[in-house]
């Protein structure tokens, strides 16, 4: 074999061995790194199938799988595209055949130019060529199945198996929302019940009464645990909105009407007093002044002069029309402004491409604002007109009658005075509504505070309420019978049965009795009779038939004597009462008196001093908590 052919054969064999070695390295790297992305996929798929991963994060976990995949691809690519060692194949052949680098050396020396080759190099080349026939690249570099590939294969099988596996999952449905009633302490319920009763008693305005009724219903619903927190606040919000609605507008409209009326009435000397009272919103004084004027007109003696009456007539006539004229004036101004606005809009429409005056837009905007303002004023004037319509009618009638019959006119004025009285009552009703609004706000604040404190605070409030009523916190005892001096520690407001004389009827009165059994009840043991007047008049007339002799004649001469009590200054001091209240609960007449004194001072301070609204709540809350209990 020619040396060149032999060298070519050596090179081919070396290249083949090199390729096989490279492939083996790539396979080995694949086998080493492939388990990485596969293991990750198995792990994530397991979590997905077993619902360990929430659906929202599954995509992110799958995307994260790109990291091991990139590691795998990078690791394999690095081996795949790495520069192969020059003599990798020939060295592998030498090592396998035990040729001591004779092949590699021959290939290495054959690359040198002939001139640079020494005789020993040439001999080495020939020596290598002589071995060419013996070379076996396949056996020298076997492509063995990498052991790690088994792991990858197992993982792949696992992945396929997992993907086919369906894991039954029991989904835990959230429990239906439970109804948690709004709980308010019995003490607070009582308080708001009392407030409701007071407001109901003070009011006779049907609208206000409806609001109070709704308030009472709300309190009862809370007491019966029929509402949850959300519903309570919703109902309170609705009630508050209804109460507030038109309250301010009505007041302003009435004030406007009364001021217009006062302005016109002040032009007559006869009605000036009433006008001044109306201007200063002293409706009771205005009513009184009108009644006095009516009396003056009724009297034949000392009647006003004809000129005064004429002035009064004119004043009454103008006053009766003041609301109407004011409304008409506003309406007229509005119509004019509306016309002007339409004209400006038309002007703008005709010259859309900048031909319009530069301040046109500004004028239009200004007009729109004024129109809105007039709309509000018109609405207010109409409302005022409506409120004053009855009074205006009476005043107009009075003005008409004044020229014919002063007496008839006086009646008209009296009816006008009644109408003012009605307005005053209406104002009172509004005050009651404001009072109710205030109570609603207090109630809301109270519920907020309770919401913060939670169950513990409710329990504390319950215990406090019991103590405040003079009860111990240790349960409900049997009601004492009064005479047994309240030995038990439960509810101590037991009925005290008094009066045991002949013909008398036993009566039950509630006497607050202290925990130690020393009641504060009236010392009524020597009081005769009961509440039956007939029975009480027959005292001392009974006679025991077994008793000898006549009954005592009681028809003797007696004289009624009245004696006024004198305060000797030896009564119980306020501090003693407060101390007693702290021990026995906020009960008893003495405590009620002390409480009233203190609360009056506190209320005065709250109304006069500058106190933050948050503190006002706590001060009022404090007095609510220590208020006298039944």
């Amino acid at each position, binding site marked *: 074999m020619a040396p060149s052919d032999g060298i070519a054969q050596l090179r081919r064999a070396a290249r083949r061995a090199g390729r096989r070695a490279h492939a083996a390295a790539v396979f080995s790297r694949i086998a080493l790194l492939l388990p990485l992305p596969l293991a990750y996929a198995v792990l994530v798929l397991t979590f997905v199938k077993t619902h360990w991963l929430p659906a929202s994060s599954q995509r992110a976990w799958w995307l994260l799988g790109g990291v091991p995949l990139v590691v795998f691809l990078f690791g394999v690519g690095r081996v795949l595209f790495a520069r192969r*060692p*020059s003599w990798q194949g020939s060295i592998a052949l030498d090592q396998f055949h035990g040729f001591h680098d004779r092949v*590699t050396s021959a290939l290495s020396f054959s690359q040198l130019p002939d001139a640079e080759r020494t005789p020993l190099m*040439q001999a080495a080349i020939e020596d290598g060529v002589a071995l060419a026939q013996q070379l076996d690249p396949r056996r020298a570099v076997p492509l063995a199945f990498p052991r790690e590939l088994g792991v990858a294969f197992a993982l792949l099988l696992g992945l396929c198996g997992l993907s086919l596996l369906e894991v039954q999952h029991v989904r835990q449905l959230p429990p239906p929302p439970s109804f948690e009633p709004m709980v308010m302490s019995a003490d607070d319920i009582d308080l708001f019940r009392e407030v409701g009763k007071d407001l109901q008693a003070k009011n006779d305005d049907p609208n206000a009464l409806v609001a109070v009724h709704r308030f009472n219903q709300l309190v009862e619903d809370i007491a019966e645990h029929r509402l949850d927190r959300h519903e309570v606040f919703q109902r309170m919000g609705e009630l508050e909105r209804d109460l507030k609605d038109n309250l301010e507008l009505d007041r302003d409209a009435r004030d406007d009407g009364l001021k217009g009326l006062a302005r016109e009435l002040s032009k007559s000397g006869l009605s000036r007093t009433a006008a001044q009272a109306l201007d200063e919103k002293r409706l009771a004084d205005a009513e009184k002044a009108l009644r006095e004027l009516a009396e003056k007109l009724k009297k034949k003696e000392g009647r006003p002069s004809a000129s005064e009456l004429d002035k009064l007539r004119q004043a009454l006539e103008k006053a009766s029309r003041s609301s109407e004229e004011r409304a008409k004036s506003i309406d007229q101004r509005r119509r004019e402004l509306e016309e002007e606005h339409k004209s400006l809009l038309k002007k703008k429409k005709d010259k859309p491409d900048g031909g319009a005056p530069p301040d046109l837009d500004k004028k239009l905007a200004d007009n729109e604002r004024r129109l809105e303002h007039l709309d509000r004023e018109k609405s207010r004037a109409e409302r005022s007109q409506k409120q004053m319509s009855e009074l205006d009618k009476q005043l107009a009638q009075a003005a008409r009658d004044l020229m014919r019959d002063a007496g008839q006119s006086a009646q008209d004025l009296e009816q006008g005075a009644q109408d003012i009285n009605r307005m005053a009552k209406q104002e009172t009703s509004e005050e009651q509504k404001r009072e109710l609004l205030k109570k609603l706000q207090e109630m809301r604040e109270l519920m907020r505070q309770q919401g913060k404190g939670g169950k513990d605070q409710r329990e504390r409030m319950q215990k406090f309420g019991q103590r405040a009523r003079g009860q111990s916190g240790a349960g409900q005892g049997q009601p004492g019978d009064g005479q047994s001096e309240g030995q038990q520690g439960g509810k101590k407001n037991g009925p005290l049965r008094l009066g045991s004389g002949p013909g008398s009827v036993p009566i039950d009165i509630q006497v607050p009795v202290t925990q130690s059994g020393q009641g504060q009840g009236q010392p009524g043991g020597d009081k005769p009779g009961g509440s039956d007047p007939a029975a009480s008049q027959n005292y001392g007339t009974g006679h025991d038939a077994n008793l000898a002799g006549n009954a005592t004649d009681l028809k003797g001469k007696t004289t009624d004597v009245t004696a006024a009590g004198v305060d000797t200054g030896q009564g119980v001091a306020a501090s003693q009462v407060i101390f007693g209240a702290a021990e026995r609960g906020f009960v008893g007449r003495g405590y009620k008196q002390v409480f009233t004194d203190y609360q009056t001072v506190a209320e005065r301070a709250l109304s006069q001093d500058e106190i933050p609204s948050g503190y006002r709540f706590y001060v009022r809350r404090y007095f609510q908590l220590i208020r006298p209990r039944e």
Partner: protein
Amino acid sequence: MTDAEQAREEVADFQKQIGALREEIGRVIVGNREVIDGVLSCMLGSSHALLEGVPGLGKTMLVRTLANVLGLEFSRIQFTPDLMPADIIGTVVLDESAGGARTLEFRRGPIFANIVLADEVNRATPKTQSALLEAMQEHRVTVGRTTHVISEPYFVLATQNPLEMEGTYPLPEAQLDRFFYKLSVPFPSRDELHAIIDRTTTAQHVEVKRVLTRQQILDMQALVRRVPVARHVQDYAIRVLQATHPNAEEAPELVKRFVRTGASPRGAQAMLLGAKVRALFDGRFAASIDDVKASALSALRHRVLLSFEGEAEGVAADQVISEIIKKLPGSKE
């Protein structure tokens, strides 16, 4: 005859001569094939060897036999602490001729021989050791203003006892580096001991014959230098050398932990020259990686200096070098 054929013949002659040499030495020395080959490699590599072994293992006998077989001038110097440089180099003496004329004459010391056995070289003072090592490196000795050339071939074999360290002057690293190989003489096996006893306790006296001439030795040394080394083999030797340094990229963990300083470039020279000799021993025309591996231990073990941790752990230089050979792949280019 072509150059290649002539070269092939030269290699064949070399192999034949080495065979004869081995056979003749083998008549005296029992076993120790590795040590004999190592010593021959040093001699054919035109360098020197350091033999280490306990007393009585035949180190001196080996060198003396080698000298006899080669027919070269041999001298033996027993190094002792009181040995002075002049004792080995020689000294100038006043010589009186028959006519009564007096001249200063340089009397050559034992160092002027072709084969010098420096027995227990670590027992002499550093000054005397330096005198020997200078001659080893330069193949010449300067006394006064005169330089005396030592005739070729020049081959120094130094021995040292690894056990008796008391009263010795260990060779410094720089001087150890001058030795081509450091050969450890192993304790003979049972069969070898039988042979040794048989040969040394009977009346049998073995006379060795001279098998090589001075010129043949010089030719063989020249042939060794001409043996080509393929690039990948040279690269491997260099990588092995680099791997002995703890900071090298390819250094194994053992080197990084326990080696203080790696081998000098003389280590690579020794490995490759040794590889060439081994290739010729086998009748091959070029050195191989296997040859480098085979000579690595002897060429590097005295050039790798262990750290304190290595000494404390009882790690041997041979262990470190074996680890390097084991871990380093054959080809990287």
